[in-house]
């Protein structure tokens, strides 16, 4: 039997993590731990890239809580054009950036979002995932996660750049990814080796960002409970209660979610 690639070995542990009865952060950490165990070299490369992004505060200038979320018109995995403002007419929207179907953390993230999708719907909100991959691969992520939400294709990362979420993978990480079986160029339909920070935004019906989670360390994602906790009070708005802006808007920093101290 041919030797398995790093990507294939990771697939097994991603599957194990998916089956765990634990918060998303714990499931993600299990994969990160497995990366460290399987290939300390690869983990070292990841650490250096993440350190470079963190040192430069990559992604921090994306729309802040209380700011307008820029509108988008992007095709979903079937080619249907989806517009943010049309979605907002129906209720709050969870906008979740993903790196691609190949990324174990994104798979677990999409799987987690699919699990809370019925609750999100009950709260009158919707989820959209955005990835730089072409429809064929967006459809793969969707079917892996059994996602009832669309996977929008942001070809060449235009919307991610508009939000200041884009970063260059860099030569060292690119070489490690290619050697490990993660050649993302064909999935993206370009040779740029650019990826979005896998950020999550919760956008209210008024188009303003109500909460955001931005971490240049792609092994961390917005906790599912935090998404539901933010949507809870917003859902009252959806049902039509009038809300006052200004003084009652609360402390913004409360909605700036940061990673849990599970370590990396």
């Amino acid at each position, binding site marked *: 039997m041919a030797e398995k690639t790093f990507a294939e070995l990771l697939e097994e542990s991603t599957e194990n993590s998916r089956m765990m009865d634990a918060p998303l952060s714990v499931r993600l950490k299990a994969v990160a731990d497995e990366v460290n165990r399987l290939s300390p070299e690869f983990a070292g490369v990841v650490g250096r890239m993440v350190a*470079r*992004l963190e*040192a*430069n505060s*990559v992604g921090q*200038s994306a729309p802040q809580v209380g700011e307008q979320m*820029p*509108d*988008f*018109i*992007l*095709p979903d*995995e079937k*080619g*249907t*054009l989806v*517009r943010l403002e049309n979605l907002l007419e129906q209720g709050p929207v969870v906008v979740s950036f993903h790196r691609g179907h190949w990324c174990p953390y994104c798979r677990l993230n999409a799987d987690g979002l699919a699990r809370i999708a019925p609750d999100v719907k009950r709260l009158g909100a919707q989820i959209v995932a955005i990835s730089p991959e*072409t*429809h*064929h691969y*967006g*459809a793969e992520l969707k079917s892996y996660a059994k996602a009832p939400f669309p996977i929008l*294709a*942001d*070809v*060449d*990362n*235009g*919307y991610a*750049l*508009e939000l*200041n979420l*884009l*970063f*260059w993978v*860099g030569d060292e990480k690119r070489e490690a990814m290619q050697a490990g079986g993660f050649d993302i160029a064909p999935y993206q*339909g*370009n*040779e*740029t*080796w*650019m990826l979005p920070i896998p950020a999550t935004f919760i956008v209210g019906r008024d188009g303003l960002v109500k909460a955001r989670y931005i971490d240049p360390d792609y092994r961390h994602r917005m906790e599912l409970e935090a998404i539901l906790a933010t949507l809870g009070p917003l859902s009252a708005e959806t049902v039509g209660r009038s809300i006052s802006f200004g003084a009652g808007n609360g402390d913004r920093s409360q909605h700036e979610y940061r990673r849990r101290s599970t370590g990396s």
Partner: protein
Amino acid sequence: MEMHQIRYFLAVTRTLNFTRAADECNVTQPSLTRAMKQLEAELGGDLFRRERPAAQLTELGQRMQPLLKQCYEAAVGARSLASSFKGGKVGTLRIAIADAVDLSLLIPHLEQLKRLFNALEFKLLRGNSKQIGEYLKKGEAELGIAVEMDKDWDRLDSWPLFTESFLLVVNERHPLAAQGSVGFDDLKKQQLLSRGYCEYAERLSATLRACDIDADSSHDISSEHDLIKLLEADIGIAIIPCSASMPDKLRRAPIEGLDIRRTVQLFGVAGRERTAVASAVMKMLRSADWQPFTSPAMAPAREARPALSIVAA
């Protein structure tokens, strides 16, 4: 990376001069310099050799230039599509499609645009590859869909959409329609309808000649519309690309041993500002799933049309 950093970077690569780039971007030179330093820190290397006032791109700068430009244009396109939606005016889509490429490739995407933008207007141009190139050069079309294009103009951007094989197509009444598989021998003594407007017609003829098939006494047809009429009347048989849509009463089948493929590509003009609608169509076409056409053996399953081999079974 931040959008303004890339905008400044691209201005410096155009002007090769920090002062002029700062003027062009309406910022002070210190802010431009600061933004470039931040970008360099994030990318992990110098982008410019600073020999004031001139700026020379380093090797990293040269490598990053096309990549950053591609992402920047995508971001500008994304932004202008969303804002043109607000204004209700999305512009006119001017697109040129080669005669040998089926318009149905574009239809689902036009339907999507039409759904969002009622006022969508388009100008559809047809021609051979050379003419498509001319339309792009002269600015009559913003986008082109064709198979091959002369590379004599370095401002053509191209994105391969899919690579497909060629199939035999015959009338359902034709004896070959009932045959399980088709080989070159079956094509002998058949009246071949040759698609003169296809860039691959010559290559196909040469392949057939090499297999002792008299391709030269074939009928020469100059439009897909005429070809379909003749096939419907069972006047001959033809060899067509997978993505060509055909009426129900025609049957298709792969030809054993025929190994000719063509790549359908999208073309645009580098450095020319694109309308919002053109950049939307470009992204839709590039992200589309073309796999139904790329399967090496079978025709697209757009309609539930029984394949030749199934008919025979």
